């Protein structure tokens, strides 16, 4: 099928984008990389009156290292982020997640902010952002605000963004110490939608886990933080017994869905196994001092 007829706007600044969004609101859709919006338009699941193309706005591009965080602007392409030395050295979890996002051809168009705002429950960028405790900056014509990632995902394809708000920036805080990260995903074929995926970031102090974040996606309505695991494993050395416990907690904690690709029971088993492997990967990386 072909998209419905729509008006096309190409604003030149963030301010102009916000003004247009304020005028059109629910009638408009922002077009970032378009790797989800274009199929939705083609299948007429989206029928906006106005498409606001923000691809060419310079203010929406780029990655900056700050003292205690890394800032990625909304329309930075996924392929650019994946190849970026700042991302590779300071956000290794995001780099690992990005290699699972779509294919080369879609990463060349797809954007970091677009994926977050799209809120697909199996999306890897949102999953990594949750484990990294990221913060979203959003702007409307009249105000701007910061949204903790934990409050951002509401349900499949629904976020905390209001119809007149635009995601401008995502900020990733940087942990201190012996950091390790792990990312594991299971899908029918590589780069297909995840049946389940797990992202882990942890900090060790003389081999003891002092900070741990585990997030799980693909299995339910939104990516979720597995805080029960975090509490249970803190101040341990992440030995085999603790990993097995983490796997059990992941298996039991998630609200998995059944669909044509996998049953809920299968997804829970995968989630348990991936959780153990991702924590082990992060632990070993922190011990080796590679992160």
């Amino acid at each position, binding site marked *: *099928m*072909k*998209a*419905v*007829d*729509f*008006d*096309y706007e190409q604003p030149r600044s963030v301010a102009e984008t916000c003004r247009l969004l304020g005028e059109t609101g629910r009638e408009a859709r922002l*077009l970032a990389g*378009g*790797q989800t919006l*274009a*199929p939705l*338009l*083609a*299948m007429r699941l989206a029928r906006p009156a106005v*498409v606001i*193309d923000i*691809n060419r706005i310079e203010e929406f591009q780029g990655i900056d290292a700050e003292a205690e965080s890394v800032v990625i602007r909304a329309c930075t392409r996924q*392929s650019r982020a994946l190849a970026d030395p700042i991302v590779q050295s300071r956000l290794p979890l995001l780099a690992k997640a990005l290699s699972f996002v*779509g*294919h*080369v*051809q*879609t990463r*060349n*168009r797809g954007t970091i902010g677009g994926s977050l705002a799209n809120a697909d429950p199996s999306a890897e960028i949102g999953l990594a952002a949750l484990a990294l405790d990221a913060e979203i900056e959003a702007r409307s014509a009249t105000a701007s605000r910061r949204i903790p990632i934990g409050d951002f995902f509401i349900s499949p394809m629904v976020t905390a963004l209001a119809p007149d708000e635009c995601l401008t920036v995502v900020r990733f805080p940087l942990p201190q110490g012996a950091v390790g990260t792990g990312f594991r995903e299971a899908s029918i074929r*590589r*780069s297909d939608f995840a049946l389940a995926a797990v992202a882990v970031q942890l900090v060790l102090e003389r081999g003891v886990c002092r900070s741990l974040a585990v997030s799980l996606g693909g299995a339910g309505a939104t990516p979720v933080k597995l805080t029960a695991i975090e509490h249970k494993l803190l101040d341990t050395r992440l030995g085999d017994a603790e990993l097995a416990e983490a796997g059990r907690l992941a298996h039991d904690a998630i609200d998995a869905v059944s669909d044509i690709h996998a049953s809920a029971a299968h997804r829970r088993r995968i989630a348990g196994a991936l959780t153990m492997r991702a924590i082990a990967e992060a632990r070993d990386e922190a011990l080796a001092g590679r992160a």
Partner: protein
Amino acid sequence: MSQHEIALKINGETCTARVPARLTLVDFLRETLNLTGTHTGCEHGVCGACTVLLDGQPVRSCLIFAVQAAGCEVVTVEGLAPDAVGMSVLQDSFCEEHALQCGFCTPGMLLSAHALLQNNSAPSEEDIREAIGGNLCRCTGYKQIVQAIALAAQRLSVANAPTADLPKRP
């Protein structure tokens, strides 16, 4: 209806047109410009048959609107051959290795592989499989396609070496 004037370069030639906003780049190439080498498969970004190069990067032309390509350089399969009768080294390798049967996926495969070889003169099998991971083929099982791209890489690297001896097939 929202209409827009665009100017872009396609296979090295400047082209101007007036397009409706909802017209995808692949429909613009095929139906407005009659460049039917780019194939339309699924029309929602799954199959990779419509892959073209946009400013040197492989992208799915069904997921971009023509109006978005204004000012860009597009390369389609028609732009790969050096002249009207010849074929590129990569295209030749596809023939020799039997890397196509029905041919539907071939234009997309060629553009994805071409982009790989532009950036990586000695790709591993894993690099090749990663590069064409977004292109579906229902005939070959991919093995011959991977072999063809490896053969093209080898030939191109030898052809570009200071004293060139064209190799025999591996």
